């Protein structure tokens, strides 16, 4: 499944880039970057889009892409918010037990909505063979439109304090935010699915050669649906986190994440043609992007410029990926 040498190179490159960011920040603003406060703020931020990036990774390894992740995130976040508000209306107090039940019910509903969105994508892609790029671009509009239609524009707010705690609270007595263990659990589950299950193997087969997968007796429709469903569920997890983090559900949350997650995944060694990449590379890439994004914030660079930089970086990375492949092909041709 992986070439150890190529993988080590990838990991090495990512770690070198991280070191580079550290060195640059040491030069430009040593006072604010290397502080406990900054480290803490970084720990709060990356799980949200890191989890989305894992969804993107699964779809891209399977030879597709999931552009609808942000839409799924907002739709499932809204679901959680509405159910929670129905159970515990704004301004009312509830017992600890009832709050816990309400949190679980709303979270499960959010994940369920994410799963359904993903199944919808996976079915269109697997059954009709419509390119994933088109299906998910359309469903992004679909899901975003649904959120807008339900909220009518303004954000849904006023969820109970316990809900806010999910993304903003820390484990009692420490500076470790709840979102960190959540991220680690998701990471382990995704790694297990990808590297230790039949589905994971089939994702690699599908991404490497769809036709050969069919001819090998692999149920490609099922694989597609399960892949996008998993991606949708991960979108749901992110949806809960971002809604809690901002304490608001609306259609325009996290719109910059689509580009960011593609950048993370490609930088993490997932090939745009599918079949290549793994969890280690993508995890390191998530951390690297968090460091860069944080550095931008400290240097007072606006979100628009960040988006510009991310776009430029993605093109640069893609050019590098293609150049490397060209060199490799040339080497192969000469053998």
């Amino acid at each position, binding site marked *: 499944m992986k070439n150890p040498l190529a993988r080590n190179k990838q990991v090495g490159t990512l770690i070198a880039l991280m070191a580079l960011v550290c060195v640059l920040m040491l030069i430009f603003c040593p006072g604010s970057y290397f502080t406990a406060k900054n480290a803490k703020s970084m720990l709060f931020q990356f799980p949200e889009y890191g989890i989305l990036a894992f969804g993107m990774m699964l779809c891209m390894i399977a030879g597709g892409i999931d552009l609808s992740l942000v839409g799924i995130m907002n739709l499932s976040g809204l679901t959680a918010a509405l159910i929670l508000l129905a159970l515990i209306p704004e301004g009312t107090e509830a017992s600890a037990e009832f709050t816990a039940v309400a949190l679980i019910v709303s979270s499960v509903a959010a994940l369920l909505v994410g799963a359904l969105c993903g199944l919808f994508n996976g079915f269109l892609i697997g059954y009709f063979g419509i390119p994933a790029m088109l299906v998910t671009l359309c469903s992004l509009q679909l899901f975003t439109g649904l959120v807008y239609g339900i909220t009518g524009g303004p954000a849904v707010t006023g969820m109970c304090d316990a809900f806010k705690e999910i993304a903003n609270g820390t484990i009692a007595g420490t500076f470790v935010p709840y979102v960190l263990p959540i991220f680690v659990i998701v990471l382990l589950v995704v790694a297990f699915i990808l590297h230790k299950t039949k589905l994971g193997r089939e994702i690699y087969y599908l991404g*490497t050669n769809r036709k050969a997968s069919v*001819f090998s007796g692999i149920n490609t429709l099922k694989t597609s649906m399960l892949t996008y469903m998993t991606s949708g569920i991960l979108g749901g997890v992110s949806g809960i986190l971002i809604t809690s983090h901002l304490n608001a559900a609306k259609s325009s949350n996290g719109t910059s994440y689509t580009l960011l997650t593609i950048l993370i995944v490609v930088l993490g060694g997932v090939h745009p043609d599918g079949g290549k990449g793994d969890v280690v590379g993508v995890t390191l890439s998530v951390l690297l992007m968090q460091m860069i994004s944080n550095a931008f914030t400290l240097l007072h660079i606006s979100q628009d410029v960040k988006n510009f930089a991310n776009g430029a970086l993605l093109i640069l990375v893609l050019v590098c990926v293609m150049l490397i492949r060209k060199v490799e092909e040339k080497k192969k041709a000469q053998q």
Partner: protein
Amino acid sequence: MGEVFVELKGIKKAYEGVYALKGIDLALRKGEIHCLAGGNGCGKSTLIKTISGVHEPTAGEIYIDGQQMNHMKPLDAIEKGIQVIYQDFAVFPNLTVAENIALNTEIKDRTKVVSYKRMRELAGKAMAQIGADLNPDARLEDLSVAGKQMVALCRAIINNPKLLILDEPTTALTAKEVQKLWGVLRNLREQNIAILLVDHKFDEIRPLVDRLTILRNGEFVSSGLISEYGHVRFQKDMTGHDFSTEKYRPEPSDEPILSVEHISSKGNYEDISFALSKGDVLGITGLLGSGRNEIAEALFGLCPAESGKIVLHGKEVKLKSIKDAVKHEIGFVPEDRLTEGLFTALPITDNTVASSLKKYVRAFGLKSFEMGENTKTWMKRLGVVAVSKDVPVSSLSGGNAQKVVLGKWLNTNPKLLVLVGPSVGMDVGAKAEIHAILRDLAQTGVGVVMVTDDLSELVENCNRILIVKDHKIIKSSDNSLSKKEIEALLMGSDQKEEEA
């Protein structure tokens, strides 16, 4: 005998210190068809690329028209009148025949305004010269492989070549199409063009070529007039050892494996019946479009039967999809192994377990170790030559890659194995190995059904033969037929076919 046009003297070519060509001499004469033959990796392709200026030789001299060439580039070769037609033809599928043929000239003449009239004229002239008859307005994607090849030939001819090189031109052609191509090449020989052909099917080239050169592992083995060669010498020079062409004749058995009764699928095949007992290797042959592939596909749920019944090991089975076929333990080796049979970027192990993942599922994760062990076992039993089980399949030769496809299905422990073109594009040695594997499988009770165009393969390995024409079986035989008789049955004058 024509004058020498291209002469190579002591050509050597090394890649990173490894010699792909170890001192080759070759003389190509005008008005002569010269065949270059050799097993996979013998250096044929490298030699062609040297003549066409793609690769510069490490040592040795190249003379064209008596003039020594130094640091030759592809453009120099083209200017000298050398045209190469590669295996994939490099045609544009979305353009028409006329556009494809005239494109190079249009670019060369730096025409800014496209004139379809001129393009059609150019195309018509080129087609007349080689004797092809294609609709100039047809799109390339709608043409058969043979049609695309004719277009590639026309495009080469339009440049008035003095030497035409064809790299394995017959790989994807039916016997009839090969005859047509030979007619075109004979016609070009009359026009005093030198032709270099890469091909390693002796029966095919014997009636056409004048001279033969055989390479092995980058070394020159022998060269001479075709009349100096016979089957035995050809095989010996190609592989370095003698092959017995003993026919496969198993002990008759009355243990039935498969029985197909009157299956039909409209427009694909009609009223097909045959039976297969333990030990049998059943061969199906027919011209392209005769329905021979569809019959094989029916057994894998790709082209399901609409009526009739299929009985496997005494039980009637419905094969409506690949899922059904896999459920009933049927394996399928497709004709195009690289795009349909293999995950070339993935290691041998992943390819071997692709159809049998279910076996390795356990409560928590997959049994990776067993995957590796099973792969090693198959590599050993099938004789896959590779550095290890972890190298990607793209690094293997055609014969070894096909063994991996076989391994993938054998790892599912199939009852029936259906193969389309089991040894297409392989050299004599690799073919013999694949055939030995199939015979062994049949002996151990796996039903083997193969579709093949290669009549030698058919006659030598199949003890039961079906000949298909116009979607029906025209002859079912227990292999008392000779190649000549089969050819006659296949060709049997059919006006409709001629027109098509």
